[in-house]
């Protein structure tokens, strides 16, 4: 055990299950996350990765199982509950309202208002400019609806939304899927920076090599079940691939 993994875990998912019409999308999965740790979730399409983290982010309600945040049992029944626990999510679909501009999307659902209760658009835009200057200095399209932005620019809006609100737990569902080489590098740097600030990050990706590079631990799922949960130092890329494909943990067999 590395020193990082002592103390109270930031997140502890215990025996989470959820089924859709008889199909067990997630079947008794337990997984934890410590401060300053990046845990990668791997598996085929439909293995249940996205469903599992959607239970944590409040988009779905788990049928059974418990969430413990900071050692306290938490009730996550809606995205609002999840946000109140300082959990922020970057969805695979980015979950942006295409007709609104970057600032409106960044503050969606928690808009800044003036003392009279009206929207403070100027302040929201100013804040957006500030955070974008840090995340993506090339970002200039503040007035256009996000439908007019490139894949990378849209991604940075989605990331800015998660980072702006001082998340302690970050869920990133395929954050680099739509990005070019340069932008992927920027996301990787950001993940490292956030990790050093003590955030816990769940990262979903198909790119095994990228995962080996960014994560402290990898968890592999297949058919809704957790196959393996190993520190990256302890496994090879081949081990991970065989877990993804065969659904067997070679380390356990050994």
């Amino acid at each position, binding site marked *: 055990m590395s020193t990082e993994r002592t103390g109270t875990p930031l997140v502890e998912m215990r025996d989470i299950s959820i089924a859709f019409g008889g199909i067990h999308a997630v079947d008794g999965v337990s997984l934890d996350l410590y401060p300053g740790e990046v845990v990668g979730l791997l598996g085929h399409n439909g293995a249940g990765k996205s469903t599992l983290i959607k239970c944590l982010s409040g988009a779905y309600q788990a049928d059974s199982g418990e969430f413990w945040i900071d050692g306290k049992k938490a009730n996550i029944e809606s995205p609002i509950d999840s946000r109140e626990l300082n959990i922020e999510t970057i969805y695979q679909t*980015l*979950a942006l*309202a295409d*007709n609104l501009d970057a600032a409106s999307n960044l503050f969606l659902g928690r808009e800044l208002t003036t003392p009279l209760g009206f929207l403070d658009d*100027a302040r929201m835009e100013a804040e957006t400019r500030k955070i974008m200057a840090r995340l993506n200095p090339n970002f200039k399209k503040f007035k256009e609806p996000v439908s007019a932005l490139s894949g990378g620019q849209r991604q940075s809006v989605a990331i800015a939304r998660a980072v702006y609100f001082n998340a302690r737990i970050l869920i990133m569902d395929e954050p680099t899927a739509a990005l070019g080489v340069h932008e992927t590098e920027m996301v990787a740097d950001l993940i490292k920076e956030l990790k050093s600030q003590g955030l816990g990050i769940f990262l979903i990706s198909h790119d095994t090599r990228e995962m080996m590079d960014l994560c402290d631990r990898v968890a592999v799922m297949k058919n809704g079940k957790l196959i393996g949960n190993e520190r990256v130092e302890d496994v090879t890329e081949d081990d991970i691939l065989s877990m993804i494909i065969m659904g067997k943990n070679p380390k356990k067999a050994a």
Partner: protein
Amino acid sequence: MTDSTETLTTSKSDSPSLIAKFLKGTELDTRLLGMFGALALIWLGFHFYGAIINGYGAMLTPRNLWNLSVQTSSIGIMATGMVLVIVTRNIDLSVGALVGVTGMTMGLLQVEFLPQYLGLGNPFIWIITAVTGILVGAMIGAFHGWLIAYRGIPAFIVTLGGLLVWRGAAFLSNNGKTISPVDSTFQLLGGGPYGTIGATGSWIVGALACVAIIWMLISGRRSRMAHGFPLRPIWGEVTVGGLACSLVVGAVFLVNAYPWPKGIIKQYAAANNITVPEEGMFISHGFAIPVLILFTVGILMTILVNRTRFGRNVFAIGGNPEAAALAGINVKWMTLKIFALMGALAGLAAVVASARLNSATNALGLLDELYVIAAAVIGGTSLAGGVGTIYGAILGALVMQSLQSGMVLIGFDTSVQQIVVGSVLVFAVYLDNLYRKKAK
């Protein structure tokens, strides 16, 4: 082939420099300009058609344009609410029937019930009636919204059912009999010679509007400066302010140029012991009260849409309902509230419509749903959701009403009117598609 496209692109990039500069400097919406263009075309077209074919152009007279403003009110009020409904990817087909049922409710209340307890002509009758009508509309709308959001019945079906149910209820409420006349104060809400604010009042309203426009431009500029955002050039600000203020002043001149008819003046003079001079008296109508109601609704709805979280969330839901839900917006509760608001506005429209007719009939607001939806769509509200403006819907209502009234003036049959209005609606949506593709 290649040659022609090349010349086309070069000529395009040369010529728009002035227009493009103007549009950029003033930040005016091309769609808004297009709507004004369409309106001008309709007005001039009908006027000169009448002048040439019938020997009398009746369209561009103060009297007709004043009437037009009053006729637009009830549709315009509802169109502002329909924008929110359509923006969130829903539809409300029941607004016409809601006008009918709330109109009948108010008719019964102010003619049959309230006078029994308060006495005929009691000054509170009109306000109790109007508030009740709006509340009944809001309650029915909320019920529709509940069925749609919490019971998962499509809005199209719920409000199609509502169209029949509430029209039937309007008939049953008084066994199909018309209720008339309405309370005399209530009647003022519908316009008519007495339901206006006169020349001085209109100038005061116009002056306030100009002050508000200038104040908005200045405070907008200040706020941009404070945050270091790009500014409009000064000439752009002056042009926008000048155009808006001259529109307001023009409207005041127009409504003040329409005098009371002789009969009304005689009545008024007799009631106030004034002797009418030989050459007659000129008493201006000024803005009609229903038009002021429409403007107030338009301003409040614009604030709601642009400046509140509610409005922002409405557009977020329209743009991506899933993202809105993930962002913690309670989409169901929002849907219920939007339909309740639509119902309340239908109740307010019924106040105006029944006051204008001086009666409540079960046919009040018949086919209004089509005009309201058409107004919103012509005004740039996208049926795909997420896009729409309040001012566009009000202008759309004015366009629809101008078409309608223009055709009446030059003597088109009802059947021809229907054909034209239907075709214009379809064509307008087609144009809108083209515009959006180009804008992308």
